[in-house]
């Protein structure tokens, strides 16, 4: 069993992150070794916080952006 920290989760997801290759390597090794990867509720909280506060540092695909915009319109109304 291996605890995967928040920065590895994010760097693994974003191919453009400067540490993406390292994170991908870590995940690949853990997978090969058959280790179960776990995260904690703290990771989920950190993910939510970082993606909320740093929304200008990444671009959502048009599909998601359209929904987010529609939701925003509803909230504004």
């Amino acid at each position, binding site marked *: 069993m291996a605890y995967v920290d928040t920065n590895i989760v*994010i760097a693994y997801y*974003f191919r*453009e992150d400067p540490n993406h290759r390292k994170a991908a390597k870590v995940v690949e090794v853990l997978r090969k070794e058959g280790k179960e990867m776990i995260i904690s509720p703290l990771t989920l909280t950190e993910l939510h916080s970082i993606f909320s*506060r740093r929304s200008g540092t990444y671009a959502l695909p048009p599909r998601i952006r359209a*929904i987010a915009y529609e939701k925003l319109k509803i909230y504004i109304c």
Partner: protein
Amino acid sequence: MELVTKPSPFEGLGYILTSLRNVIFEHVSDIISKIKSPVELTVEENAKLRQWFTKEVIGESIKQSLKLLTNLSYTVSEYDDEIWGRVYEIIVHMDAKQALELELRLAETFPGVPIVVKWTGEINVSEDELADYLVKIMMKSHLRAKALLGFDAVRFVREERED
């Protein structure tokens, strides 16, 4: 006395096959060099080729697929996005569930192509169902969020913990 040996019919056939193989190899190598040449296009030429392909080929294929996937009316528009390239926006006159099912089919058919399906009918999906559909669509479309210049997960997490 000179000994003359006649080649057997099989040896003759072997010679013909070898010659034929050489001719084919020559043509293949000629074709391969022709295939390789588009890589040498300039950035501008490559962009033009890509633009033509996405506009003419993918756009038309999406319209053809829509004809097969739904009988209800729809409109298709396109716009160029700085990050995602050509985006296809489809407005369908159906409810949310039907529209999301349609989008899922389109995502399966056109992976990697940014397609947005909007609907004019009622919203008959819960927030959880909508989230489920979006995850499925994202998985099928192979489109994921892109980090912009300056994105650094390690720094973000460190700063988050220092706050």
